[in-house]
């Protein structure tokens, strides 16, 4: 059985880019545009400089100057501190003139991503950060659910993480993700789990929350490729492949944690019997009688007491994964 690649989507992609590209005179490098705001009043907001901003927002000065943005912008983009605030927040003259009066519509002419909905909130950040690992953000699960950059990140990072990258709103990657994924917080505390609680892994070791080609937001192109990053001994390829193991590790393992050994989705012999239930000893109903006898299929590590090469075998007689 040979598989064929689908070329039609590639052709469509190329056509769209060519067609749309004709509308652009020049594709400038990212981050060269400055955020724009539409004034609520008739007058047009103008740039006033950071010195005006810190008149009210003095607490932001020190943290921003020591943040990655504060340090990088002068070098990389030629944006010194005086222009920093309005690079993201837009011209602030009307906002400043409102003097903190929220009944004045001009107060809201400032661009504050934290007060906006998902796509509008993220628009400011995406002006510079749409490449690299954010390439597939648009249309991703998080984007579709109106999750925005500022729900996880804080540009003014003095509140958390000691100003260090990646400037999260919470103290760690895990706490950031657990804001919405509360069930995962509990799962990683189960007795068989990856060392996330011990600080040796984080959610982003496997997932790319900014969008990825995989529907589960995997950091790599596929689930399997992600697992083999650490479990290269399971990559094979083997002479005797175990098809469910080759197709998807999650057929047998729960990567977020399990109460069964080796993060299995259920206890060993029942896991195997999900499939192997038709003839001879794999199909036996191992009950309390077998438990008292300490029948190997249900005792200790269950079926893999014998079928130890269950991920695949390179032995000429390995078709039962015993060798």
């Amino acid at each position, binding site marked *: *059985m040979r598989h064929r690649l*689908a070329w039609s989507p590639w052709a*469509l992609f190329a056509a*769209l*880019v060519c067609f*749309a590209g004709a509308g652009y005179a020049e594709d400038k*490098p*990212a*981050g060269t545009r400055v955020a724009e705001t539409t004034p609520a009043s008739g007058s047009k907001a103008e740039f006033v400089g950071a010195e005006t901003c810190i008149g009210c927002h003095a607490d932001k000065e020190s943290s921003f100057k*020591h943040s990655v943005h504060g340090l990088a912008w002068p*070098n990389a*983009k030629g944006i010194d501190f005086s222009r920093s605030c309005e690079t993201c927040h837009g011209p602030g003259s009307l906002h400043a003139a409102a003097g903190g009066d929220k009944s004045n519509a001009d107060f809201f002419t400032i661009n504050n991503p934290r007060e906006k909905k998902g796509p509008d909130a993220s628009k400011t950040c995406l002006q510079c950060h*749409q*490449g690299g690992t954010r*390439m597939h953000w*648009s249309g991703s699960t998080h*984007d579709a*659910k*109106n999750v925005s950059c500022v729900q996880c990140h804080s540009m003014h990072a003095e509140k958390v993480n000691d100003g260090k990258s990646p400037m999260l709103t919470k103290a760690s990657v895990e706490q950031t993700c657990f804001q919405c994924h*509360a*069930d995962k*917080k*509990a799962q990683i*505390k*189960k007795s068989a789990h990856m060392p996330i609680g011990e600080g*040796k892994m984080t959610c982003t070791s496997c997932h790319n929350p900014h969008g990825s080609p995989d*529907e589960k937001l995997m950091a790599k*192109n*596929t689930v399997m490729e992600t697992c083999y*990053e650490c479990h*290269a*001994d399971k*990559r094979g*390829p083997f002479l005797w492949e175990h*098809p469910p193991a*080759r*197709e998807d590790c999650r*057929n047998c393992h729960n990567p977020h944690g399990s109460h069964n050994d080796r993060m299995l989705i259920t*206890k060993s012999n*029942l896991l195997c019997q*999900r499939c*192997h*239930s*038709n*003839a001879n*000893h794999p199909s*036996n*109903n191992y009950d309390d009688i077998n438990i008292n*006898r300490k*029948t190997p299929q*249900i*005792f*200790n590590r269950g079926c*893999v*007491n*014998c079928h130890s090469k269950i991920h695949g075998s390179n032995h*000429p*007689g390995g078709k*039962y994964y015993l*060798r």
Partner: protein
Amino acid sequence: MTPRYWSIAAALAALLVPPACGAAEIKQELKTSVRQEFLSSPNGGKPFKFEEYQTRPNGFVLDEYSIDLRDPGYILDCSAKKTNLEDQSYRCTGGRPGFFQYTASWNQIPHLLSNQAKTGYTKGDGGVLTLPVTLRAATTVAPLATDTAKLMREFQSSLRDVQLGMREDIAAMEFRGRLSPAFTVTVGADRKHKFGNRPIGGSFGNTGGSNVQELPEPIDYVSNDANLGLDYAGQSGQLGLRYAYRGFQNGIQALTWDNPQSNVDSYSATNKQAAVGRMPLAPENEAHTVSLSGGYSLPWAGARVSANAGYSHWKADNPMYAMTTNTALRPGNAAGTAVPCDLSNPASCAYPSHILQEMDIYTQEFRLSARPTHKLRGSIAYRSYILENASGEKSFNGWVAYDGGSFKNETVSPELDQFRKDSLEAKADYDLFESFSVGGAAGVEYEKRTREVDKGKDYHVEVGSTYKPTQSLFVNLSYLLGLRRMNGFDYQTYRKFATQTAAAAPRDVFANEIPGMRRFDVADRNRNRARLQVQYTAPNDATLGVSILANRDDYRAGKDALSGNYPGFTNTQYGLIQNHTYTAGLDASTPLGDSFNLESYYEADFSRQLIRANPGTGQFPSDDIVDRLNEFSHIGGIALEWLPAKLVTTTIGYDLVFSQLHVDPVFNGGGGTVVNAQSWPTTKRMLQRVKTSAGYKVRENVELTANYAFEKFDVTDFALDNVPTLVQPTNSPTNNMTFLGASLRGYYAHSLAMGVRYKF
């Protein structure tokens, strides 16, 4: 950390030393503590592990040292953690902001499996496990040779401690630099070394079914990985090209172990023994992956196209071991006594000396997303995953399941399993109101594989709504209906069935893949899934997160007769026929007054599976039992933080992780034999942990800390809580199973630590 790695780290640091540190702002912090622990096991014996990374040595611990240098032209952020413990780690990130950034790290990840295992084997070079000479000699000397019970007692007397566990040392570095405002290059490399022992089964299976020998498999894995990336980021278009190399080397390519019941090879109708067993271990392999990603923002309707194409080539070229170490056997001759077929004598082997396995993986994704109006957004995505087994066809004449018995004088040809999955999905969300949106998705996934059911489609429809009246409240509710509809059995092209002829023929042609078996991953499936997510932040910074997931999967036979119309087979679906899971998670925190913060979380899991099994050995599905598996989990925790004064911090927390599994037969049916089946004893695991900590700032930069932790683990598990080193099943006393005795044991532990946190 070995001297070699220290020298590499020092060289790196020298290369990347800050050009001008004089004007930089430097922050340094040191955390140290003195620790005393007490562990015990309620049932006596050696206590099991406390925390994941083993018991720690009592005494001084350097918990963390960090230095953070910030200069307009350079940043450097380094930390060293637990430098005198096994889970030590070091990390440095630095660079010139906006131009380049590098990261170098060393991380040790220990994983203890058991600290009370015992083995009679001595580890030699090249994965050879040998038993004491005296015991080996005894296996052929009367009366031990004919009295396996006595022989096993001799084996028991040779046991000594072996620690089962592994450690992975990871050295990694990454450099990212901007070549121009639009181009960024990334170079990374890491080296992982995993070593230690883990249990592995090495059955001889020569008498009474399966003589399990559990062995301490020596692990010596090295992975060398490299990454190279080039990114272009324009205002409207972005492009990324990546190359990844993964090289895996196994220092121990085969495991060879003595049979504790025999040191002679034989093969006859009544006596099937092998003196030594051998199995190849994880094959060395390498993978090359190239991927190209691109995204382009179209000038209309807020539209954007993105695409990704990836190609991986996996290759494993490893020694091909002979079918057995049993010198009484040779290929094609069950009773031969001539030259053994081995790598030392390849001329006698029917197998090649090396075996080359290759796979090609293709992945594609195309997505068009758009926001034509402020209220409407949608996307359409196509994904493809193709696994092409590019290995050559192979076949072997004669094979042995385990080195003792079960010689099969037949030709076997490993199947070249292929797999592909293509999916097309369209999604749309519409904001009915400023704070309320509804959405829907519909998709189809096409699967094709070299399996007993060769192809099928999985349709799904999902509807949902999101309520987000303010930035502080988010409610997401969704429901998914999935219908997987597969083809019938592919008798024509599925070679594993090809030799299946009639009911009278051997029915276990290949791993029991006989007509009548339809596995749950290729069976028809009805899926109903509902999800609720709530996140709320109150004005006083109290937070509430709720996550509920209910999933019901029901499996059914689907197209065509499951029996394949063979006499003696029924049309009943076996294996997993129902899998329902329900999960509810809660996370809440709130300040209590000016000086208290309360945090809590709780999750309840419930899983119910129905698995249809057979009542007895060798019976075919004319009778059956449906087992019901119920699994409950309760996981929760509560922590109280008390800040009585500006200089004092106190916390106390309690965590509980509890799970319970129960299996009972709920239906004996099918007709024919009356079957009595008994419930399993309930298995339980409970981990309780109390942690308290207190901190007092003597000065602004000096804090005294005290930590106390109590941890208690209880376990009731018929399979794992009492694993002896020798088991002889009462119904098969000649089946001598030797285990490592790696039981899962309860324990309790106290840990007290007093420390200092100092900021320079």
